[in-house]
């Protein structure tokens, strides 16, 4: 142990350029052995690029990488694995119908003759699982495991291949609070047993509670390296964004008015006889934000799509200001003042190769004054687009650029601008700040609260529990398509709501 070099990983002056964009500009990162090291930064700050260079996905234009004090050239993930690196991606790379063992040995199968020696593999998987407290059954089918367990399989996979340095990309994005706690315990255990852990994240609370050291990146530069005990959330946010940031959403108490949206007994049958939404009823009042908390995949996506008119429910009714809109098209709903910020902006929200002007009219393109009977009014469109881009601070403010050219945060601001400009009375918001940087998040939150204060009803779905709790006036917890209960976001504890998100304490309340 005492022979261990001081740094497990050392990157010196690493530079990587994509076209005109310098994704990593002479970055220096030193990661002490047997520590948990967080790399934080906004989207596009270059943190994933640096780790992809370390893992051999990209080759740096210049600079050097030292592993355990030795300069190494890592030109492929294969090299990285040979040097004891392992990476767990945000999106798992698992084959669902196969067992845990089969997944783990995939590509590194132990053989006896030509046959794969599953017995040996199983024993080894079980051994590693026990050694690091991962509690994974080697014979379980991966498709039947929870998301948290699947993540542990990914970690097992790297350990099976002999990883001593683990890189985890946004490891907590898909987990419930309880699963996050378990994951942290596992990561700490791995550190105790001599592993070095690098996590890429943007969740400041987690960074502060888990890591030993922090590297902060901004615009391709390393703007700070500091031990966690010297860091504060506000200080880190300031370093990430480059200016003072309000982490808390500032809002006054809501003044709820009449219900703008009433959902009655909404049901959606699933493909395989299952029920995706089971008799859901609730109301959203004018001037309030109703948040929906729940682990992703419990029916939130379908609920919002049904409310927006993009999916047809099996049963139930939707009322907008006492008018039934269950059968109306998305366009008819939009004309009645229903704005929708979709959860997946690339799939639903944007026409990526259309310019900003073209994207700014999606959904209102048939309506006067944007379109006449036949021809689109280019002048009106361009003026409106320029105004939206300015008001919502979309950058770069060039309406002839394709939407693809914008960063995630700016793309989202464009969608928000477009949707909020119809002067909505009901706003359906799904993952409003996913993949959006802190600055834009702050802006979008402020706009949402502004519209709430102006009398709009807001229905908010987010996988970020923090976001739901800080924005909402009421929070409804959903699990497997059912409403588990309602809580007051000001008083509820994370533990309590976490348990509800996992489906326990099934309090019926409508």
């Amino acid at each position, binding site marked *: 142990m005492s022979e261990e070099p001081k740094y497990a990983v050392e990157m010196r002056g690493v530079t990587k350029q994509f076209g005109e964009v310098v994704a990593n500009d002479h970055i220096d990162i030193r990661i002490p052995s047997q520590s948990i090291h967080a790399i934080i930064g906004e989207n596009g700050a270059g943190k994933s690029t640096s780790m992809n260079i370390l893992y051999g996905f990209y080759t740096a234009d210049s600079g050097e990488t030292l592993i355990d004090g030795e300069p190494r050239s890592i030109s492929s993930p294969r090299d990285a694995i040979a040097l004891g690196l392992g990476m767990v991606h945000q999106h798992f790379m698992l084959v669902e119908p196969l067992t845990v063992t089969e997944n783990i040995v995939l590509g590194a199968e132990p053989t006896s003759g030509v046959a794969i020696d599953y017995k040996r593999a199983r024993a080894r998987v079980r051994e590693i699982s026990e050694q690091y407290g991962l509690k994974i059954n080697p014979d379980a089918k991966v498709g039947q495991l929870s998301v948290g367990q699947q993540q542990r399989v990914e970690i097992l996979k790297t350990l099976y291949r002999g990883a001593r340095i683990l890189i985890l990309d946004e490891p907590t994005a898909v987990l419930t609070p309880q699963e996050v706690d378990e994951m942290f315990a596992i990561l700490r255990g791995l550190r105790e047993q001599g592993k070095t852990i690098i996590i890429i994240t943007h969740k400041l609370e987690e960074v502060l509670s888990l890591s030993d050291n922090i590297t902060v990146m901004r615009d391709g530069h390393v703007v700070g390296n500091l031990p966690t005990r010297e860091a504060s959330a506000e200080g880190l946010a300031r370093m990430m964004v480059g200016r003072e940031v309000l982490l808390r959403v500032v809002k006054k108490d809501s003044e709820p008015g009449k219900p703008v949206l009433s959902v009655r007994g909404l049901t959606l049958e699933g493909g395989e006889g299952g029920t995706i939404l089971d008799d859901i009823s609730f109301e959203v009042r004018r001037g309030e934000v109703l948040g929906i908390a729940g682990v992703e995949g419990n029916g939130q996506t379908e609920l919002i799509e049904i409310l927006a008119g993009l999916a047809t429910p099996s049963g139930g009714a939707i009322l907008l200001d006492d008018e039934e809109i269950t059968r109306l098209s*998305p366009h008819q709903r939009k004309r009645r003042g229903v704005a929708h910020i979709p959860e997946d902006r690339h*799939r*639903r929200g944007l026409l990526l190769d*259309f310019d900003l002007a*073209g994207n700014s009219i*999606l959904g209102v*393109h048939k309506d006067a004054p944007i379109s006449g009977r*036949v021809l*689109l009014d280019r002048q009106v469109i361009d003026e409106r687009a320029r105004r939206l881009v300015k008001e919502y601070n979309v950058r770069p403010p060039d309406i002839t650029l394709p939407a693809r050219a914008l960063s995630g945060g700016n793309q989202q601001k464009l969608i928000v601008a477009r949707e909020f400009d119809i002067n909505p009375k009901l706003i359906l918001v799904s993952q409003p700040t996913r993949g959006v940087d802190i600055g834009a998040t702050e802006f979008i939150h402020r706009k949402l609260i502004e519209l709430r204060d102006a009398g709009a009803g807001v229905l908010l779905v987010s996988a970020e529990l923090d976001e739901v709790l800080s924005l909402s006036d009421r929070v409804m917890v959903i699990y497997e398509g059912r409403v588990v209960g309602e809580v007051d976001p000001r008083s509820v504890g994370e533990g309590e709501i976490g348990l509800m998100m996992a489906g326990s304490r099934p309090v019926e309340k409508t």
Partner: protein
Amino acid sequence: MKNNLKELFFPVVAVVAAFLVGGILVWFIGDDPLLVYELFFTSAFGSIDGIGYTLFYATPLIFTGLAVSVAFKCGLLNIGAEGQLVVAAFATAWVGIVLAGWPALPVVLLAMVAAMLAGGFWAGVPGVLKARFGAHEVITTIMMNFIAFGIVSYLTQYHYRKPGDPILETVPIAEVKDGVLVGPHIPRMHDLLAPLGVDFPERLPLNLAFLIALAVCFLVYVFLWKTKWGYELRAVGMNASAAEYGGVSISRNIIAAMVISGMLAGMVGINEVLGYRYRYYDGFSAGYGFTGIAVALLGRSHPVGVLLAAILFGALARSALFIDIFTVKISKDWVVILQAIIILFVACEALFRSGASRVFRRTVKASRTPEEKESLAA
């Protein structure tokens, strides 16, 4: 404007590269590449006859190129333009046959409408099948081609052929009597330009259909980029999910795009029947529908690009015979090979794009002032 130039850049690179490879092929076979190039240019563009024929050959390709482009803008691959134009050409002749004895002008107009309706219907069927049942349009349009060829041949052979005619063609709808063409037809360029005092040779088959094709290029441009319907159609092609989210009906636009595509392909019938042969001649199409796919690809599904690409392909068609005759070892098939090479290069665009755009970027970067660099970095 800059974007348009950039759009033009890659097709031009593809064509130049194809000509280079074609030249190497000529040299390899043992003939003179420069002679072949010269023959190509002089025969296609070097005389009024050359230009006349080039544009005449280009006319059907403009229609089919636009047809494929419109479908493509909606995310659909219309492989069936060939069947659509065959059906349409037959319908054009059929109107002329059925309405024999009517005054020419209404018959001409009705025949044009028939061409578009027949083509539109033939493409609309795959459109409906796709929108309602998700049947893939590539499969259904190919199948519709075979049905079209069969039905039209049958009708020509057994119902509309001049008795005793050894050629598989319908009775004529217009005929030369005493040196004058009598019956429904559209004027040739000679007749159109004569009042303007321009002497365009009467022997050249270039006719009003070419001007119609130019007008249609403009209309398609306006439709796709200036109207709300064009916006919806392109939105569906770009990202159907996002279009749906924006209140656009995916199925309605798929059907509309196919019908419009078929109507455009069908307009080939106007050139062929009303402007050139004045009858339906079975097997008249030299694969116009399929070449239209190449034209649309090379023209990047933009009306201006389609026009230029169609003229290039028209020029190739025109020069084929001359290259065959005036070279020792090169046959007219060289032109077909060249067409194929062009398409291969266009299809390999991604390859060019990465390579060429790197060069492009390097040039731009080198020419940038320090201030510009700074403002970019900020």
